[in-house]
């Protein structure tokens, strides 16, 4: 009995030592990453307030980001398995400020329906996934940003000029995605439109060509991507809603939210935001003015 207890104590002290060794190694690793990331001077864990999310992420040297895998221009996973797009670039800017290299970002697919549960359960640290900031969502998660303001718009066949704005949708079959913000908006504000909800926006294109639906409606950035790929399709009229895209994170993690807001404002000023836009969505869309961050 006695020997067993001594053994346990020995084991405990050994593991404490091992832990100490580990954390020492972790610090060293952090500094290395910083060097390879090149530049960032304020990225060591010690520079963040103790106990903050930034400090623990910087110390771990990795971050889990939820994004879309099927959204051209914003988050689209290529054949090599890595997502690309404007959301992904924003994620890299934030990770960079934490001293985390691009390769240490773990990308997780979040679809419209699972973004809140993934944040609430901690399966992701942040969500950057064409995620519209709104008041109902603010009750369950917090939002940094916006980093871009999209707006709902309409796509039709290029030779169909009957539909020029949302008021022309009355009595027309409008294709969108089941469980999305544009669907909810159409039902609420344009009840005379016949909403036809499919699984993905890309599924709407063939029915539009076949005349099974008259129009597709969702955020202008998504429609612009389709119009760029398909010369027989055209975006109609000006956006008729404002969809501020924010970065979702755990409810009430105010320090983290404000820190991300600082990072975004910095990227607006130093040109990295513009660069990220021009490499991705900017290939088919004009470069907008950076939006004003909402520090609610």
């Amino acid at each position: 009995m006695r020997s067993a207890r001594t053994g346990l104590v020995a084991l405990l002290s050994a593991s404490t030592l091992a832990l100490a060794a580990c954390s020492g190694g972790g610090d060293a690793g952090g500094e290395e990453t910083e060097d390879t990331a090149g530049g960032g001077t304020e990225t060591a864990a010690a520079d963040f307030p103790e106990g903050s999310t930034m400090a623990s992420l910087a110390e771990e040297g990795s971050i889990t980001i939820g994004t879309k895998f099927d959204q051209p221009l914003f988050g689209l996973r290529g054949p090599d398995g890595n997502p690309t797009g404007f959301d992904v670039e924003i994620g890299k800017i934030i990770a960079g400020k934490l001293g985390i290299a691009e390769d240490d970002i773990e990308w997780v697919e979040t679809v419209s329906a699972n973004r809140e549960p993934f944040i609430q359960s901690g399966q992701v640290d942040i969500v950057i996934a064409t995620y519209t900031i709104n008041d109902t969502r603010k009750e369950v998660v917090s939002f940094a940003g916006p980093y871009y303001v999209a707006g709902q718009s309409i796509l039709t066949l290029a030779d169909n000029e009957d539909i020029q704005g949302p008021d022309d949708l009355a009595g027309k079959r409008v294709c969108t995605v089941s469980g999305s913000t544009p669907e909810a908006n159409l039902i609420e504000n344009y009840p005379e439109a016949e909403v036809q909800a499919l699984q993905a926006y890309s599924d709407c294109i063939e029915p539009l060509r076949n005349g099974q639906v008259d129009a597709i409606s969702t955020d202008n950035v998504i429609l612009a991507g389709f119009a760029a790929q398909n010369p027989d399709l055209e975006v109609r009229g000006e956006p008729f809603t404002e969809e501020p895209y924010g970065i979702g994170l755990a409810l009430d993690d105010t320090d983290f939210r404000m820190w991300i807001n600082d990072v975004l404002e910095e990227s607006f000023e130093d040109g990295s935001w513009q660069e990220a836009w021009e490499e991705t969505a900017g290939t088919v869309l004009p470069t907008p003015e950076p939006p004003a961050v909402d520090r609610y």
Partner: protein
Amino acid sequence: MDPSVIADNMPAFLAGFRLSLQLTLVAGAGALVVGALVAMLRVSPLGSLRAFGAVYTELLRNTPLTLVFFFTVYVLPQFTPFRFFGYAAAVLALTLYTSAFVAEAVRSGINSVGVGQAEAARAIGLTFGQTLTSVVLPQAVRSVIPPLINVIIALAKNTSVAAGFAVVELMATGRRLAQGNPGESIMVLVGVALFYLVITIPAGQLAGALERRVAFAR
């Protein structure tokens, strides 16, 4: 997790439930008719009809339902003048898919009737059609009803695939409500599950009761 989200959205849930039930009944009836016809093809004396029936059942029974939906919504308009969409496409896809399972159930029922029955019927001069409809099928029905109810239960659950194809049945209703109540998405899904149980559990009970009656009759 607040169950009041279900009570507050009862009209939406009921509308979705009605459509799911309607899809089950309409596609179920269609599948029973088509499936019985295909089963008859499969026991027909003509080789070409048997082959057609076999290809039909094997193709539909062994492909995912989502694919059958894609064919009715996206592929059919490319090669035919049919422009099925929404409810009509869902009824068609669910009927075709389910009919293959009905055909298999009915065929096994026909095979369960002793071969002597058909031989005796032919010996007294009944045609193939008369033999099937007056002698074999009435006896087959007894053993076929319980598996058929299982097929219908599967159909009731399969109607949820229509949610992705412009039909606002229970599942699509659930997605809409989850979008409107982001904090209560789990409770909304629990509500959706409960409404499916309202269809499937009584159907299962019915299958059990019929099975007991059939057993007694024997």
